[in-house]
């Protein structure tokens, strides 16, 4: 087993989700083939399931029914070890939390590459040291998350999701708490990841106008527990 070279197709087939022990369905009949080389913005009201949608894509939650397919293989049928070869191509950034509190910011960022040493991208560590400096984390890099400002924590989570140079990147409100410079840095970083051919698909949810304007190619809406692709249809449902 090793790291899968390409995530050719990422697809939801009739996905339904409800939290275990709860009867209420969060969403259902989700069918989407995630397009390559696109930035998808996920839009929906509070509680519509945007974060859960991203977590399913990251393999942190499994659909209650339906299938989540990567390269035609249902990830529900894979063990943790088997899914690892796919997941190493997926980066995920949490909306809140997600940093190991007993490690410094730098250790947090470098943890995936240290743990999966054999799949480390050549020169990845050096590049990350440069990024830490450019992101303005140099002075706090050796401090633990509880000792640094929220903007540094947020930037750390986002940088960590990029260290293995994933093809599918999932960002849940990536700009919360970031300064204008931080947002600009992040936008440029994501664009360079795309230009260098590492990043294929970006799926994110964000309320930040600047980030959305710069990064959105396609918008998908979660409304009435379903995925809707066109703005017109989303507006019609609101009316």
């Amino acid at each position, binding site marked *: *087993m090793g790291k899968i070279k390409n995530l050719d197709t990422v697809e939801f087939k009739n996905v339904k989700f409800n939290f275990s022990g709860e009867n209420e369905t969060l969403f259902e009949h989700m069918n989407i083939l995630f397009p390559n080389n696109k930035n998808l913005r996920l839009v929906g009201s509070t509680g519509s399931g945007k974060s859960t949608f991203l977590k399913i894509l990251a393999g942190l939650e499994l659909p209650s029914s339906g299938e989540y397919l990567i390269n035609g293989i249902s990830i529900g049928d894979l063990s*943790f070890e088997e899914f690892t070869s796919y997941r190493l191509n997926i980066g995920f950034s949490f909306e809140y939390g997600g940093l190991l509190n007993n490690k410094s910011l730098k250790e947090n960022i470098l943890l995936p590459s240290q743990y*999966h*040493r054999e799949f480390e991208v050549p020169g990845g560590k050096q590049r990350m040291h440069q990024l830490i400096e450019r992101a303005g984390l140099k002075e706090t890099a050796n401090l633990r998350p509880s000792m640094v400002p929220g903007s540094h924590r947020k930037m750390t989570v986002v940088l960590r999701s990029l260290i293995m140079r994933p093809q599918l990147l999932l960002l849940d409100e990536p700009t919360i708490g970031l300064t204008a410079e931080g947002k600009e840095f992040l936008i440029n970083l994501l664009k360079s990841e795309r230009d260098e051919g590492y990043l294929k698909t970006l799926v994110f949810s964000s309320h930040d106008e600047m980030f959305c304007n710069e990064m959105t190619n396609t918008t998908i809406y979660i409304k009435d527990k379903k995925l809707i692709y066109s703005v017109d249809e989303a507006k019609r449902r609101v009316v």
Partner: protein
Amino acid sequence: MHKLAFITSRLDSWGAQLISVFVYTKELLMMTYLSVRAVIYDETQGLRAIFSVVSAQIYFTGFQALPIISVLALASGSIVIMQSNLQLNFLGGNEMIGNLLVVIIVREISPLLTALVVIARSGTAVASELGNMRVNKEIEALESMSINPLSYIVFPRLFGGLISVICLAFYFTLVSLVGGFVVTKLVHDMPLNFYLDSLAQAFSGEDVILFLVKNTFSGVFIFIICCYQGFSVKRSPHEVPQVTTKAVMNSIFYVMGFNLTVTTLFYLNQLIRLGVL
């Protein structure tokens, strides 16, 4: 009729409780197996990262517990030696001091007190640490990085905890036998040669087996129970103290139950061998 209904309802309740204990034990054993399996089969796992957590666990559970274990061992060793010596003097069986110490300290007090100290210090810490990690989404974060929490979180605590418990129990035994003698010597004259001869004659292979079995069980079960309870936190921080309390209660229950069972079986076996049963 009412009495019968009462009895059957009580039996139902006890039966349900017994089944829940079996189910819980099965889940603990499954978690132990899966954590060991994760380390063996996870091809991408970083062994260096795992063993740095193991060494941290040994430092915290084993090394940092040495002062409290020393005090407990010294005090309990002195008490047992002084009391035994006094009682044996009355009975005229002073040469039995070694047997009594092996039975009381090596087989019983050392595994039990070590386990209780480890539960109080490290068990609570592990359960609350993992509970807080769950609340702060640290466990999910590990999964998102393809780091199996079973190999990165559970196994190092289990393995480090097991090594620590065995070493601490050995240290406890040593300090209570040697230190206890030194303290006793201050208040009561006891020849060293006599004491050492008596101990050497009393030790047998069975004592070593009993010592290892009890401490291995404590090491594994204390840490797997505390990890299991820590992982059972869903979302809210207020669950953390609740699961910590439950981890302590369950650990004590399992350690006491196992110690009692093993000792009972051991003595039944002794009685059978002596022809009493």
